[in-house]
C-alpha cells in the first residue's frame, strides 16, 4: 500500500513538472523490491504446502506405472477405481472404526470435562484446588510414558483390543486439556444468572443443562473440533491397544495398507486422501472455533 502511495506521489511530482525527488524514487524502488520479495516468499510457501497435497490427490487418480514414472505428469485418464480398491482393502472398515471411536470419545470427553469445569467453577467442592491441580496436571504427562502399564491394565480388564480401549484412553488423556479450556471460559461467565435460577428453585443439574451449557456453546464447539482432530489422527494408542484388523482406525490401518499394498500405490494415495479430506473440511467449516480453542488452550 505505502509502496503504491509513494509511486503515486512521484508520479504527481512529475506531473507538476518539477524534478522528481531521487531519494523518494530510490526508497520507493527498494520498497517495491521488498514487497515483491515478501509476496514471492509467501506465495512460494503456499506452493510448498499445497503442491504435495494436490500431488496426493492426483496420485490417487493415476495408474501404478504412472506413479512410478514421471512425478509431475497428470494421469492420462483419471481413474477413480483406486478409491473402490482402497475401501475394499480395508479403508472402509478403518473409516467406520475411526468414526465410532472419535464420536464416542468426543461425547465422553466433552461431557466429563464440562461437568468437571462446572463443579470447579460453580459448586463448592471439598479439595477443589487439589482436584483442579490433579486434573489439569495430567497435561504434563506424555502418553508414551503410560503405554506399557496400560497394556497390562487393559488386558486385566478385558478391554484390550476393543473399541473401549481407545475410547477410554482418548477420553482420559484429553479430559485435562478440555476441562482447562471449558473452565477458563466458564470462570468468565457471570454467575448471577445461575444464582437467580437457584433461588427460583432450579436444581444444579437443571442449571447446568439449561443455563450454563447453552452459554458455553462457543467453547464447547472448540472443545469438540479439537477432540475430533485429536481422536481422528491419533496413532500411538491405536497401534498398541488394537491389533485386530477389523477394529483398526485410519492412522494405523493406512500404515498397514501401505505395507501390504506395495503393488497398488494409487489405492494407498486414495486411502490417504480419504483420511485427510474430512479433517480439512472440518477445519474450513469451523476455523473460528479451531483457532479459539488452540489459542485459549495454550494461554490467552
Amino acid at each position, binding site marked *: 500500500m505505502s509502496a503504491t502511495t509513494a509511486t503515486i506521489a512521484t508520479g504527481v511530482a512529475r506531473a507538476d513538472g518539477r524534478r522528481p525527488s531521487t531519494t523518494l524514487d530510490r526508497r520507493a524502488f527498494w520498497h517495491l523490491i521488498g514487497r515483491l520479495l515478501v509476496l514471492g516468499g509467501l506465495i512460494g510457501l503456499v506452493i510448498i504446502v499445497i503442491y504435495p497435497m494436490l500431488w496426493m490427490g492426483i496420485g490417487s487418480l493415476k495408474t501404478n506405472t504412472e506413479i512410478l514414472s514421471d512425478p509431475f505428469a497428470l494421469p492420462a485418464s483419471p481413474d477413480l477405481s483406486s478409491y473402490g480398491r482402497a475401501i475394499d482393502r480395508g479403508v472402509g472398515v478403518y473409516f467406520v472404526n475411526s468414526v465410532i471411536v472419535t464420536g464416542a470419545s468426543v461425547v465422553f470427553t466433552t461431557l466429563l470435562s464440562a461437568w468437571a469445569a462446572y463443579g470447579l467453577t460453580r459448586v*463448592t467442592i471439598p479439595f477443589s484446588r487439589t482436584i483442579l491441580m490433579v486434573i489439569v496436571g495430567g497435561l504434563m504427562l506424555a502418553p508414551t510414558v503410560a503405554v506399557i502399564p496400560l497394556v497390562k491394565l487393559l488386558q486385566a480388564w478385558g478391554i484390550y483390543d476393543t473399541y473401549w480401549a481407545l475410547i477410554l484412553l482418548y477420553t482420559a488423556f484429553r479430559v485435562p486439556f478440555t476441562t482447562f479450556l471449558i473452565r477458563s471460559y466458564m470462570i468468565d461467565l457471570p454467575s448471577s444468572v445461575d444464582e437467580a435460577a437457584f433461588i427460583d428453585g432450579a436444581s444444579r443439574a437443571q442449571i447446568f443443562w439449561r443455563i450454563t451449557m447453552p452459554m458455553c456453546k462457543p467453547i464447547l464447539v472448540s472443545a469438540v473440533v479439537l477432540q475430533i482432530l485429536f481422536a481422528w489422527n491419533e496413532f500411538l494408542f491405536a497401534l498398541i491397544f488394537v491389533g485386530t484388523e477389523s477394529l483398526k482406525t485410519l492412522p494405523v490401518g493406512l500404515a498397514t495398507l501401505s505395507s501390504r499394498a506395495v503393488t497398488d500405490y494409487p489405492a494407498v494415495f486414495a486411502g490417504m486422501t480419504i483420511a485427510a479430506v474430512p479433517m480439512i473440511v472440518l477445519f474450513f467449516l469451523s476455523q473460528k472455533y479451531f483457532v479459539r480453542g488452540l489459542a485459549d488452550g*495454550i494461554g490467552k
Partner: protein
Amino acid sequence: MSERTTAEHAGPLGLVRYASRVGGQGPTAGRTGRRWRALVWVIPGLALVLVFVYYPLVLNFWYSASKLNLFTGELSFVGLDNYTRMANDPVFWRSLVNNVLYAGISVVFQVFFALVLAAVIESQVKSGRWRAALRSIYFLPSAMSLTVTGLLFSFIYQPEGGLLNGILDAVGLDHLQQAWLGNSSTAMLAIIAMSQWQGFGYSTLLFAVAIQRIPNEIYEAASIDGVGPFRQIFTVTIPLIREMTGLMMIVTMSGAFQVFNEVMVMTSGGPDNSTHVLGTWLYRSGFVKNDFGYAAAIAVVIFVITLALAIVQVRYTSRKRVVW
C-alpha cells in the same frame, strides 16, 4: 497497559501453579453433606485421569526396575539393571541425539521462522481476507494425521517416481538424487523436514493470534516515531509477544521428545537404527523384542525430560506478565 499476575491467562500449566496458591471456592456454600455430594460433578473426569494417566505412570517406575514380559506375565525385580543396560546401549544414545536434533530444528522452523512469518503476514499483507487465507493454508498440513503426511513424504522421498528427486532433476541438480529414507545419513533429516512442513503452520497461526492481540495504538505510536512497518516487526511485534515465543519453544521441544508416529510410518527406525527416537526405540524394545522392563526404563527418560520442560513452562507462564 498494566502489570499483574494473570494465572487465568497463563495457559493450562500456569493454572497448576495458580491453583496451588489460591483457593478455588465456588459462589455458593452449602452444608457439609451437600458439599461432599457435589463431588459427583468432578468424579467421573477425575477418576478417568487418575486411573489411566497417573496410575500407569507410577506403575511404570516399578516396571522400569523389573524384567517384564507382558505376553507371558513374567515380572521379576532386577533393580537398576535396565538403566545400566541403557547407558551402554548405542541405539538409546542415538535415539536421544535424534530427539535433540528434532527439537533443535523444530525450534528454528516452528518457533523462529513461524514467528517471523506470522509477523510478516500480519503487517505486510493488507487485505484481511488474504491474511486469513494464508494462515489457513499454512495450517492445513496440521489438520492431517501424521500417518498421512508421513506416507505422503515417503512417496515424495522415493527414489523411483518420487517428487523430490523429480524436482532435483528438473532444476539440474540430479547428482543430489538419492533414496532419501534408505540412506542412513539423510533419513533422519528427511523425516525432520517432513515434520517442519507439517507443523510450521500450526505455530504460525498461534503467533498470528498473539500478534492480533497487540493494541493498534502501539503501532501508531511507533509510526509517529518514524519506525517503518518492516522495522516494527523487530522493534514492536517480536518483543511484545516474547511470552508466546517462550511458550512455543517449550511446547515444541516437548513435542520433539514425544515423536513417534512419523518415524514409525516412514522408516520404523531404520536404516541401521539410524532414525530411532526414544519413542520408537521404546516400542521396538517392548513390543518387538519383548523386553518391556527396558522399554519402561526408556519411558522414564521420556517422562523426566517432558516433566522438566513442563515445570519450566509452569514457572514461565506464572511469572508477572504484561497485560493490556
